[in-house]
């Protein structure tokens, strides 16, 4: 239940010192994105997140959402907070100015969204799903559909949802059955969708559902899925709201976490609206290309969920740290007059360092990917666009898979710091673990991310893009060797990074070589490989952070020395305690399949 304070100092460091903001500011159309502007945007967003969103995090978790006869009410305070959110113009931050957005790049949207997610992850899911739907309409919608739906969705007065999952079609969308029949200029949709985040709510006057369905003559499997736009209320030609469409929320789920985010079962075509039987939907793009469109948007969605992992970890760390400073228990092992705050105990410090160092590594990694996403979209030079685009493709499953799995570990450690108090719900530490748990599941489970990584991102190009990244890591290693000749911290970081990069490189080669000859073994080791990729790329970013901090400290008239020294020590912790696991992971990835696959099914 602790307060949230946006980590603006570390955010500014990553943006300004690790090369996030600089290259983006010089892109075409980004001249206004100066360090001063970004600082002001982040400060005001921090104020809103800390004072409006964060206080509703715990109360929202306790109260949850309520379903009554097709209507869903969100917890107390959410409506007012959402009104303020829209009035503040925050929903429009990253969208094109053409439809009322502010057109800010992803490198600015990323820290802003991190704050919403840390402050109140359940709340943040509403704008996140709207953003996904807006991207889909921007990508595939006709001009008429764009004009009809985008301005309100970008403003936030209408929300958006994504309807993929059905009871029999989860990770495998080839099995989906919802059907769409042509009727004049529109379609009639029939079917049931589950796990629809914010599928029904009382925050906005209209809800725009994006629905995957099959047309009658569509081919079997994933090549026969189309994407439709289905408004809760029909939109009249003059933009006003018309009849109630035939889509209804049948119930909401009782979940482990994100209680304040309604997860709906949606029924299309139950003849419960005012438009006759079958929900009226409009085709987005072309028939049978729905899944392809979903894949284009998937990077943004998976990145956003990775950011949730970072954000929850930050919140859990802040809460554990506050408790560790305050809780007095036991004497200092090196001797003290009486009981001391537990932050003085070595193992509590180990836990706090493990949380802090992984939070900072995840942030550096995620913001770097955000900057590359902007460069891949906007750079004047096609070679640069492609280079950064390939980097983003490689990194998305790592940011998603590693940051969310790490969040579960960090939130769990946060409870451990609290001891028994952490197990009590009123403390609020447990909520972070419950909220974090979904992040490793939705938008593709960790195994789905790992499959994507080994297959599309490593094996397909023989590890070429990964080897490009490895070359950059080796360059960082060389810089460390030079700067670390007289610095024990940098020397320690260099040693661990070198071993980590070697471990990752041998696994990249192994995945690329074995993918065709022994695919079962590669899949068996895929999740550990994802973890290895995360800690090595994260460790690389922490090494870069240590170098940047070292440069600041060496500069004449250096200021803010405490921050930079802490950064170097934190990077060293990550190197010695997290990166150090790389060798063991490499062993089990390359040699561990035999025991994974060794039993017959009935021997379990």
């Amino acid at each position, binding site marked *: 239940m602790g307060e949230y*304070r946006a980590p603006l100092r570390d955010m500014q460091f990553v943006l300004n010192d690790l090369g996030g903001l600089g290259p983006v500011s010089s892109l075409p159309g980004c001249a*206004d994105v100066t360090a*001063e*502007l970004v*600082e*002001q*945007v982040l400060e*005001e*967003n921090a*104020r*809103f997140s800390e004072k*409006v969103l964060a206080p509703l995090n715990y109360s929202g978790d306790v109260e949850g959402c309520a379903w009554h006869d097709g209507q869903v009410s969100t917890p107390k305070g959410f409506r007012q907070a959402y009104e*303020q959110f829209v*009035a*503040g*113009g*925050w929903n*429009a*931050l990253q969208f094109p100015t053409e439809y009322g957005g*502010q057109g800010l790049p992803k490198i600015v949207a990323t820290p802003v969204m991190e704050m919403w997610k840390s402050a109140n992850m359940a709340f943040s899911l509403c704008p996140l799903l709207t953003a996904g739907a807006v991207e889909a309409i921007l990508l595939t919608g006709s001009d008429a559909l764009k004009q009809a739906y985008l301005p309100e969705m970008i403003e936030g007065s209408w929300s958006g949802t994504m309807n993929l999952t059905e009871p029999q079609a989860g990770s495998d969308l080839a099995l989906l059955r919802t059907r769409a029949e042509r009727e004049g200029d529109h379609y009639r949709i029939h079917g049931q969708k589950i796990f629809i985040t914010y599928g029904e709510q009382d925050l906005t006057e209209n809800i725009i559902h994006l629905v995957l369905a099959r047309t009658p003559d569509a081919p079997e499997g994933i090549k026969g899925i189309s994407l439709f736009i289905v408004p809760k209320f029909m939109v009249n030609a003059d933009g006003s709201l018309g009849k109630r469409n035939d889509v209804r929320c049948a119930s909401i789920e009782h979940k482990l976490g994100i209680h304040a985010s309604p997860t709906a079962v949606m029924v299309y075509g139950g003849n419960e609206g005012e438009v006759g039987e079958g929900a009226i939907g409009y085709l987005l793009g072309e028939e049978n290309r729905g899944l392809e469109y979903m894949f284009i948007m998937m990077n943004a969605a998976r990145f956003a969920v990775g950011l949730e992992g970072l954000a929850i970890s930050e919140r859990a760390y802040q809460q554990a740290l506050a408790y560790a400073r305050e809780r007095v228990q036991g004497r200092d092992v090196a001797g003290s007059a009486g009981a001391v705050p537990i932050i003085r105990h070595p193992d509590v410090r180990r836990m706090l360092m493990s949380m802090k160092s992984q939070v900072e590594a995840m942030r550096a990694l995620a913001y770097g990917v955000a900057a590359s996403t902007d460069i891949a979209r906007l750079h004047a030079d096609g070679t640069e666009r492609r280079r950064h685009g390939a980097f983003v493709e490689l990194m998305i499953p790592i940011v998603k898979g590693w940051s969310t799995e790490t969040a579960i570990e960090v939130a769990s450690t946060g409870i451990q710091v609290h001891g028994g108090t952490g197990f009590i719900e009123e403390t609020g530490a447990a909520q972070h673990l419950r909220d974090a748990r979904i992040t490793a599941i939705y938008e593709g489970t960790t195994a789905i991310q790992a499959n994507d990584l080994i297959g599309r991102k490593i094996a397909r190009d023989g590890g070429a893009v990964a080897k490009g990244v490895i070359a950059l890591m080796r360059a960082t290693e060389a810089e460390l060797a030079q700067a670390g000749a007289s610095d024990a911290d940098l020397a320690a970081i260099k040693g661990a990074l070198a071993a980590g990069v070697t471990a990752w490189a041998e696994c990249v080669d192994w995945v690329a070589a074995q993918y065709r000859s022994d695919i079962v073994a590669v899949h068996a080791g895929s999740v550990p490989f994802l973890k290895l990729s995360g800690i090595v790329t994260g460790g690389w970013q922490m090494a870069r952070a240590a170098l940047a901090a070292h440069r600041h400290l060496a500069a004449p008239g250096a*200021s*803010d020395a405490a*921050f930079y020294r802490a950064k170097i020590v934190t990077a060293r912790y990550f190197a010695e305690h997290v990166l150090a696991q790389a060798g063991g992971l490499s062993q089990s990835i390359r040699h561990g399949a035999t025991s994974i696959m060794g039993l017959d099914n009935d021997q379990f």
Partner: protein
Amino acid sequence: MKVLVPVKRVVDYNVKVRVKSDGTGVETANVKMSMNPFDEISVEEALKLREAGAATEVIAVSCGPTACQETLRTALAMGADRAILVETDAELQPLAVAKLLKAVVDKEAPGLCIVGKQAIDDDCNQTGQMLSALLGWSQGTSAYKVTVEGDKLNVVREVDGGLETVVLKMPAVITSDLRLNQPRYVTLPNIMKAKKKPLEILKPDALGVDVAPRLVTLKVEEPPKRKGGVKVPDVQTLVLKLKTEAKVIE
């Protein structure tokens, strides 16, 4: 009617201030700085007057180093129409600030100045009163509620033991108290617009103001650390100690 709102750049209210090791002042290097909270309330009140049609233009003014531009940008993002920085690296005491503000008032001819009742760094609570005296304008300090009626201003003031209502003739100086209003959250579109709003830079010399400090700071030190308490066995001992040791009762 123009409304002039002075805004001061101060150490953020969340920061625990530390005295510099040489005792010359408070550490401000690498410390988060923000707009004085009472000045935020002043900006909010001016914006409300504009929104109610009682004011036509809101001008934010700051006196101090270049970095005060950030504070002015915040005022612009809240909704002020334009900003003026009286730029100087010199130490500014309340009298110097009041003189600088008077010079800006002479130039801009506002009908009303809304000044924070005090700044949270030095807590002087002097600038507004000095400005009103220098201008010869009426003043309503520690404002709790402000309403405009024609060329009169009703100001409800927070005073010891309650509220007092004064009627001021305009032009006037108001100093804002904590409960005057709740400052708005800055919106993203207004942050973006603020970049393009005019920010004029003036120098004290050009305004003909001598800002030289009239007071000398001898030394700045932390208040003495609180000593541990003692447990007394009974009320008699407590009363005795309060009389003889603490000397707070007779």
